[in-house]
């Protein structure tokens, strides 16, 4: 059965994702573990660090295109951004401006700021935001791949949406505040974080795809992320933002807010989009959902 040859992106480590995403043997790591130091800030708080501080950066090839890559490790401190972690990503994006690779692939798997290094993390995310926009302004597409167990939350949710495009799996989540945070502050009636089906109807890949918040939806499979990224870059032309484009985006966001601003569940929006059996959406496989979206009235 084909199930057994699937290599889940959700489950894989950052290094396993890179190994399967890039052309075999093409990856070369910058600042690899053997020459790196774990975060001194974690050590100060009596916590063990990781040699790569939870992010792997380097260069490689994707379908023979030269690319730069950054992959966050969701299993280490929730992929959260600390001083070294953030600085590695910033350095990679600056390198992209100088080197002009075919793309930067950003494998996001992060809850946002690492609280143990809160200020360093927040500022680093701000620097990453500026650096992503600098790379894009230099004509280098930055593609966010979101399908890890930590999703893309907090500042990393903002970073993902600053990228040229987002490729997601159904398992991926993309949002600002985590459901647990909303539940803690606003109560379980506002958001029951344990109702995982609801969490995914609000933040998951399928909903984001139906709402055009991600450009491509792929299966939870490393090979599918690879195919999805190659196909996306095949057709991609990175062009600088213009006033007209930002105005159009502003209008689209305004329109969407007035149309769906009162909705509280993906089911309501999907029905409003013209999907006849919205409750079936979570059960559809990736191809079925893509076909469903193509058939929707525009």
């Amino acid at each position, binding site marked *: 059965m084909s199930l057994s040859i699937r290599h889940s992106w959700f489950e894989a480590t950052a290094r396993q994702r890179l190994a399967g995403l890039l052309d075999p043997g093409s990856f070369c790591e910058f600042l690899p573990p053997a020459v790196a130091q774990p975060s001194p800030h974690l050590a100060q708080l009596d916590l063990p660090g990781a040699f790569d501080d939870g992010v792997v950066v380097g260069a490689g090839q994707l379908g023979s295109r030269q690319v730069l890559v950054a992959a966050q490790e969701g299993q280490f401190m929730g992929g959260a951004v600390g001083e070294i972690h953030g600085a590695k990503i910033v350095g990679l994006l600056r390198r992209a401006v100088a080197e002009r690779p075919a793309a930067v692939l950003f494998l996001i798997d992060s809850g946002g700021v690492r609280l143990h290094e809160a200020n360093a993390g927040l500022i680093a995310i701000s620097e990453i935001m500026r650096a992503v926009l600098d790379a894009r302004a230099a004509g280098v597409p930055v593609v966010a791949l979101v399908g890890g167990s930590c999703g893309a939350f907090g500042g990393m949710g903002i970073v993902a949406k600053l990228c040229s495009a987002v490729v997601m799996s159904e398992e991926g989540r993309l949002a600002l505040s985590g459901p647990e945070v909303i539940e803690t502050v606003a109560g379980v009636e506002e958001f029951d974080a344990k109702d*995982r089906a609801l969490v*995914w109807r609000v933040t998951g890949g399928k909903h984001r795809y139906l709402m055009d918040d991600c450009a491509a939806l792929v299966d939870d499979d490393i090979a599918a992320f690879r195919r999805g990224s190659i196909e996306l870059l095949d057709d991609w032309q990175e062009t600088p933002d213009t006033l007209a484009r930002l105005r159009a985006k502003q209008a689209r966001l305004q329109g969407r807010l007035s149309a769906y601003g009162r909705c509280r569940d993906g089911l309501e929006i999907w029905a409003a989009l013209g999907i006849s059996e919205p409750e079936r959406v979570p059960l559809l496989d990736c191809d079925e959902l893509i076909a469903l979206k193509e058939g929707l009235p525009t």
Partner: protein
Amino acid sequence: MNAPLPRVWDSLRQSRGKRLERAASLGFGKEIPVDRIIDLLEAVIQPGDRVCLEGNNQKQADFLAESLADCDPARINHLQMVQSVLALPSHVDLFERGLASRLDFSFSGPQGARLAKLVQQQRIEIGAIHTYLELFGRYFLDLTPNVALIAAQAADAQGNLYLGPNTEDTPAIVEATAFKGGIVIAQVNERVEKLPRVDVPADWVDFTVQAPRPNYIEPLFTRDPAQITEVQVLMAMMAIKGIYAEYGVTRLNHGIGFDTAAIELLLPTYAAELGLMGKICTHWALNPHPTLIPAIESGFVESVHCFGSEVGMDAYIAARSDVFFTGADGSMRSNRAFCQTAGLYACDMFIGSTLQLDLAGNSSTATLGRITGFGGAPNMGSDPHGRRHASPAWLKAGREAYGPQATRGRKLVVQMVETFREHMAPVFVEELDAWQLQRSMGAELPPIMIHGDDVSHIVTEEGIANLLLCRTPEEREQAIRGVAGFTPVGMARDKAMVENLRDRGIVRRPEDLGINPRQASRDLLAARSVKDLVRWSGGLYAPPSRFRNW
């Protein structure tokens, strides 16, 4: 000589009649309005009654439990509760509020800590902590309920009941109560004109009440494959190759932990590659574990009889009626009493996990400050000396235990544990916490779940110890130390003796079984997520929301 006093021979029937009269005088018919349930309970229950409150492993008569707890302790008190599982806060409220004083039960799970406190305060008298079969047995001997409060899926106008897939303990409870002058009250989720099938006939049921919300069912048997570790995969490989294959185990029961879930998920992959399809794991006494779906779909499994059902499995079970026991209506019927009997007498193997093991192989899940009980594990995890039918696995184990001239076989009772639990708590200990618990509770026996003399094998990440082949208590102890890894118990092993046991095949390492630990990859699991299980089921399995990530 004086004439003997005339004895009344139908006092139970008379008592039942009076209770029913009291109910009738308050205007109650068979169908009780939901807002008058407390009036009914106070009318038919008397102080000192033995009351069975249906609390199963999964299905709970939760509305009746809460209603009973809200009754007036001045009118209802000194109840003797008999129930298999004490799972809900309201079950303990009965004792805290002075309605009940004595308890016979099997398992308390989440209420274990509150229960222990009540015992220490001497506000509860525990008759005994039973296994399921013992408790059911005593329902028909000396613990027969005066009143049974049960849960059913639906009732029709006559009062016939449909129990749904989670039949569980209901048939045993109703049979004991209804045929010994007792009163049976059922909470139902719905009233329907026509039931899918009749599980309990109307004349065994005195009253029904439609509960304000469906009875609670705990998804107790759903294990997310995503949480299975490589170490569990390694142990599962060892168990399959070193025990299932060698004994040809076809009839079995599994525990509910991740260790055995790993075995279930290796059947379509690793076991199939070893050519074991059709040779092992064909007939099961088991709840419908979602992790068994890939093995069923691969053709490994011929039959599964269930203690209860599992949330989300109904459509799948209905569509696989060759495998599961289903009624003419297509839906499943489970039965804990029969399935426990199958587990005790008809299975060749029980395999499960535990929290602690001592040097004699005794195991316990008891921890200090909690009285959790046993459930059904000791029934399944014991060698029934009354068994007489033979099977290859049973005979082989018997020859290992008693020599080539053995006149009986032996059940395989396997304990499968990692040497350390989380937070580095060693599983192997010199003395079980159960002994300290016995002392602090003043109990007659320590709460040992599976006795060491019933255990045939222990599987850890370090290897398999075959206790059947041990000939002296010393050998047994060293065999256990020999698989106890880096726990203090393991490090205190006699290395030479363990190596000697290894030469005799009593202790076997992964490499002795031809297994390289590095092959133990999660890639071997037929499903690595709950979503994979849904895919295997062809979309028939509908997991509860908390197990989804889509």
